[in-house]
């Protein structure tokens, strides 16, 4: 199982703060996980429709589309940060 967190407007569109997901093959790339989530349609499709506006962190570290997610990881999806 992995934990997926959503922040800002991704959280609002998906309608969840977080969820658990069983990984089919034990690991997956960020890009493939994004495709899987987008394919769910509805709020997920809306949240993930424009990949350019989505950032990801794996285990609290920024990660790019090629990063590998393994069982037990915490994955977060969010828009580009706007603090400061």
């Amino acid at each position, binding site marked *: 199982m992995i934990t997926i*967190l959503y*922040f*800002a*407007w991704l959280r609002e569109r998906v309608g969840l703060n977080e969820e658990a997901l069983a990984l089919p093959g034990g690991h997956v790339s960020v890009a493939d996980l994004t495709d899987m989530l987008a394919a769910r349609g509805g709020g997920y499709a809306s949240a993930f429709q424009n990949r350019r506006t989505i950032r990801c*962190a794996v285990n*609290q*570290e*920024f990660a790019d589309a090629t990063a590998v997610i393994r069982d037990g990881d*915490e994955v*977060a999806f*969010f*828009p*580009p*940060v*706007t*603090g*400061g």
Partner: protein
Amino acid sequence: MARIVVSETDFDVGAEIAALTAGRTDIGGIGCFIGTVRDAVPQAGTPIVTALTLEHYPAMTERAIQRITAEAERRWSLLGCTVIHRVGRMQPGENIVLVLAASAHRQAALDATAFLIDWLKTKAPFWKREDLADGGSIWVEARDADDAAAARWQTQ
């Protein structure tokens, strides 16, 4: 070692400077930046923001700020460094963020201050939502200018 605080509570700039410099006589300059809630959005110019909400990623936030302050301490000879970032809901005029950097020399203090706020804006997991006078709310979009400001420091 930097002082890092992520909190809903407001900060006291004078008290933070006093804590940073207490008992020290080797500091020559302290750079400081305070970010505050503005009631006008850049596109409009008129006061239409009624509140600002800062969301963050609690498990990641302090670690991300530690990376940023460690990088500042690697690049400049700092004698003290403080980063306080508020989260939650704030009114126009309230403080959002405080950066302090102390050094023997003013240029290091000023450069480190600019670096810290530029990187905080682009490399720490905070998101701003503005509540508007018309009852709606918008998530603030990342600005290309902020990415460019942060990228200035890459070549050093």
